[in-house]
């Protein structure tokens, strides 16, 4: 019994032609969702917040509802922390975070009062780089001011920025100032060149991470360039401030494209920065050279692992005996880098690293700084704190600056970047 004789009567046609607009049509994403709910079961916010409908609704279901025209974006999209774990969970390649970012941008543009406290606060938080630039002009004064209880109370009461957290200290000297004082690159090479995207935090708060990057790459014979740059946009995406993110992206793409033309690959030490340049840029903006920047961007240790015998070099090194409790940031996980630091440290004499589990740290950049999100943030982080206490380390370790804040805030441990540990091992 075959239907072959009817086959010439029925010719299937393309029902949904591919979008001509260059990948911003999310229809196929909505169609690819087969409702298995894997994303919902992986969502850290949904796990602790009853009122959060979860990524399956925020993405494909809300996108469909919007086709009806008069349906507004649900305000719960602002409770998504942009950890993007749903992206790495989805077995059907639904572009969930792209849908969330797009929906959040639309919500902020159409439905948020531009004079509301929430909007102003979110705008300040998501432009942390600007805030830090002011702070870096007089770091001691800024540190004193930001940590004073008066200012913290004002932040809490007036701005909605939690007083529970210790404001990160500005460095005495920014990374860029150090770079300039040093006279720039100490290794010249036409073959091996990298452009360092330090992001805001390594520049203003933890220049030691940036210095470790420079020294480790120079040890392997790379010429390091430090092009002019703005924030990667991660906190802006998370707050739906897409126009701000686009402005920053225009600068970054132009500057990094120039570096790529000079033969450099782009290196980030912060996993959210590398993820933004790699994934969110081409997903959200259509700028000349943006695909190139995405294709040439790497996380620092990832790059050395691919292009150099990093594990071989580390096998001959040793450090003072220390045990680290390692947390893989969600955004490292998204790039497939969750196991990398542990694997590299396996070969370092003296260093021991224990994975503190695959939960989210809960801070998600600016999310855990908001008064109304603080409790949720700490609930999400509880599992990680618990594992850290159990591991009884000498220090914590993670690639992400805000995960590091959360780890320190929840456990009191000092937190290191894997690059710093690699620097210790290779250069003593």
């Amino acid at each position, binding site marked *: *019994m*075959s*239907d*072959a004789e*009817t*086959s010439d009567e029925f010719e*299937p046609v393309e029902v949904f032609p591919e979008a001509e607009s260059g990948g911003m049509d999310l229809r196929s994403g909505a169609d690819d969702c087969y409702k*298995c*709910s*894997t994303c*919902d*079961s*992986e969502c850290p916010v*949904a*796990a602790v917040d*009853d*009122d959060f*409908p*979860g990524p399956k609704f925020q993405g494909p279901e809300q996108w469909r509802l919007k086709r009806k025209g008069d349906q507004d974006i649900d305000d719960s999209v602002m409770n998504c922390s942009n950890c993007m774990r749903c992206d*790495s*969970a*989805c*077995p*059907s*390649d639904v572009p969930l975070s792209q849908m969330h970012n797009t929906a959040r941008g639309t919500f902020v543009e159409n439905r948020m009062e531009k004079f509301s406290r929430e909007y102003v606060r979110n705008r300040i938080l998501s432009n942390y780089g600007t805030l830090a630039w002011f702070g870096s002009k007089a770091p001691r004064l800024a540190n004193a001011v930001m940590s004073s209880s008066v200012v913290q109370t004002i932040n809490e009461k007036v701005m909605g920025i939690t007083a529970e957290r210790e404001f990160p200290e500005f460095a005495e000297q920014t990374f860029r100032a150090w770079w300039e004082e040093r006279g720039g690159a100490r290794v010249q090479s036409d073959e091996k060149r990298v452009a360092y995207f330090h992001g805001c935090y390594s520049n203003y708060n933890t220049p030691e991470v940036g210095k470790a990057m420079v020294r480790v790459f120079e040890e392997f014979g790379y010429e390091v360039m430090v092009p002019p740059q703005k924030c990667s946009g991660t906190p802006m995406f998370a707050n739906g401030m897409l126009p701000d993110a686009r402005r920053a992206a225009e600068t970054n793409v132009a500057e990094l494209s120039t570096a790529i033309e000079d033969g450099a690959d782009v290196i980030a030490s912060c996993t959210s920065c590398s993820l933004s340049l*790699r*994934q969110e840029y*081409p997903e959200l903006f259509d700028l000349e050279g943006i*695909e190139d920047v*995405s*294709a*040439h961007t790497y996380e620092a240790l*990832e790059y050395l*692992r*691919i*292009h*150099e*015998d*990093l*594990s071989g070099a580390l096998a001959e090194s040793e450090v003072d005996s220390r045990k680290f409790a390692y947390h893989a940031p969600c955004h490292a*996980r*998204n*790039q*497939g*880098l*969750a*196991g990398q630091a542990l*694997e590299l440290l396996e070969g370092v004499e003296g260093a021991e690293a224990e994975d503190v589990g695959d939960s989210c740290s809960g801070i998600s950049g600016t999310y855990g700084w908001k008064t109304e999100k603080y409790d949720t943030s700490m609930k999400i982080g509880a599992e990680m704190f618990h594992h850290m206490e159990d591991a009884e380390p000498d220090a914590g370790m993670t690639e992400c600056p805000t995960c590091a804040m959360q780890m320190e805030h929840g456990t009191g441990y000092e937190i290191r970047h894997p690059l710093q540990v690699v620097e210790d091992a290779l250069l003593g």
Partner: protein
Amino acid sequence: MAIEDDVLVIGGGLAGATAAIAAARGGAAVRLVTYKENTLRNASGLIDVLGYHGSDEPIAEPFEAIPDLPDEHPYRKVGVDAVRESLALFDEITEDFYEGSHTETNALSPTYGGRVKPTSRYPASAAAGLASRLEETLLVGFETVTTFDAPLAAERLDSSVPFDVRGVTIPFPGDYRADARITRLAGALDADDVLDRQRRIGTREVLAARVAEHLGNAERVGFPAILGDHEPREVRESLESELGVPVFEVPMGPPSLPGMRLEDRLERALDEEGVRVEAGNPVVGYDEDDGRITAAYVDRGRRRVPYHAEQVVLATGGLVGKGIDSDREGVTEPVFDCHVPQSEDRYEWFHDEVFDDQPYARFGVRVDEDLRPLSSNGKPEFANLRATGAVLGDYDLAREKSGSGVSLSTGLVAGRRASEDLQHNE
């Protein structure tokens, strides 16, 4: 040549994990790369070997039935002893988490649809529900857990088993959204969230009290499989002590907690065996030299990174896991483009009746006795590639109820042979 291992396993489900563990035990340095969350979350958590073959009657003795399967079936390639050994490995990895190893006879577990499924191993949490225990049964569903209709399941079961089954639907204790996720409810049972501060009564106690009203003469109580995410044993024991009768979980569809708990166990076992696990990026291509794969390329977003290995195991899953892909032109294996036998005419891929023996359900790569995928000319595609689990063709896991057993046994053999070939090359 930065990323280099003896054995590269592609895929992180039951088959991939088993292959990686077996290769590591053979002394190989093993790396497992997996793209997204695996399909264990869609799996009931039951470990079946063979439930049906050639008739609608469930098979009682799966190991005795294996030699009757067609020559092309994966079980015939690895042989019945490998199936036994792989279950022994599974028992060792899962320890007291699973039951059923005391006999080779199939157990019959109730399902959320009100049927019974023949299975070789079952989570300890499902043990009290087996149909072989002829005890009057109460099934309890929750208003917000719409994937389990307890009265309907009970009615169906009651008509096919020799004991009475009743079903009730009650509200889950506490104040949750109408569409609260089951992980949320499981978490509340784990934490035993306090509901009555003054009398210090927790979620478990309130739940037991609500069920007790309906208990009657029931000698056991079944719930949808949401009794705890991290502490299933503790949650079950609390409910049992409150109710005074055994409590069991009915295996569910996605997202499946028993599947996720099994995933955690496998992750732990991989870690203990020293397998390096990398998740998040797909394998999209390979380098080849003289009929051997020399490197597999992992796609890290607009760039391809080579992973070098001497032996490669393909464990990417079937149509659901996307290890097998299809479009209007044909059915393919997307990573190494291995041959997938199929009819030229698309209208011969299926039969009209949904529950007929569907040809498409058997689509997958065909392998030799050594589990090496065969090209259309019947020769191995590559000398150092083996395939395992649902990416294999020539069997219908949904119809036969053989998915777990095929993944375990082909995984064990593929991993073991991969590590043996290394020593052979030295």
